[in-house]
């Protein structure tokens, strides 16, 4: 005698972005000075999904580096990096930060479901403080967006 017991399971969708730190600091800089390769070890951005669709990683900031009324324009703030993934890395090495999210990486065909390890990308920044820039502590929030 056989009995049947139907079993069902609902696998939830997983779509998550993690960054290995929440802040970076260019520390003290003089007007006219350029600092590159920050942070030296790079920021590790891990994108994980099991949704099964192509996904994209974008970068932007809401406002330029600001200190009170003074700003360092985004044209002086460069992002670059590389990826461990099999998709397409769009950084040219000289991308200026933008307010509109700019494409950084698009997933490869085998990354539509990349659990458990996800796909790591690495990000660095270069900043030039314009000559004559007023002194002060400048701050900006860089936003990383993982989207389908």
């Amino acid at each position, binding site marked *: 005698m056989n009995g049947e017991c139907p079993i069902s399971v609902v696998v939830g*969708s997983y*779509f*998550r*972005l*993690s*960054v290995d*730190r*929440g*802040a*970076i*600091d*260019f*520390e*003290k*800089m*003089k*007007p006219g000075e350029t*600092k590159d390769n920050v942070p030296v070890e790079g*920021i590790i*951005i891990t994108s994980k*999904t099991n*949704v099964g*669709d192509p*996904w994209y990683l974008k970068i932007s*900031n809401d406002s330029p*580096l600001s*200190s*009170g009324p*003074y700003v*360092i324009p985004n044209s002086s*703030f460069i992002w670059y990096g590389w990826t461990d993934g099999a998709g397409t890395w769009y950084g040219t090495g000289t991308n200026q930060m933008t307010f509109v999210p700019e494409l950084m990486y698009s997933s490869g065909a085998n990354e539509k479901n990349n659990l458990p390890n996800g796909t790591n990308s690495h990000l660095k*920044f270069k*900043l030039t*403080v314009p*000559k*004559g*820039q*007023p*002194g*002060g*502590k*400048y*701050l*900006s*929030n*860089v*936003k*990383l*967006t*993982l*989207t*389908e």
Partner: protein
Amino acid sequence: MKKFLLLTCTFTFLLLPFTFAFALQTTSSITVTVTVQGAFNLTVNTDSFDFARMAPGQKGDMNMPEGVAVASSSSSGNPWYLKVSTTRPLTSGSNTIGNENFTWYGSSEGSGEWRGTNEKNMADQSTAAYVSSADEAGQSTKVTNKFKFKLHVPEDTKPGYYTTTVMFTMTE
């Protein structure tokens, strides 16, 4: 039954666009900071001037009618002050001419407060010669102030070659 099917279909068609409208998206933020150091810059267009030969009791002007041009700029974001002083009174060996006899005045091309429209003597170190405006506090705007100097040689001054160093100090 037909009504049920129709309702089901309608529901499905209504639901489908919503299902596709919600593309997944998630964000993370990194706070980026930099501390820009303020740059202080002070230049003087000459490293010496003199009053040539003067007799006791005489009052005379320096030998540079255009004065000494002192250019200041700052990117610190804070107001700054310019002071003029001497490191010591005019001195020749053990003899001196007191700073109350050594006066300065001049003009400013800046938009701040110039305090040297009237003569002031070097013995009075209580006030700044120039106070920057808010605009000049952080924009690296070069401000030129022109200083002129006068000397009164007291009647009882002994002859000699008297020297001192005039110092311009820029501070926040």
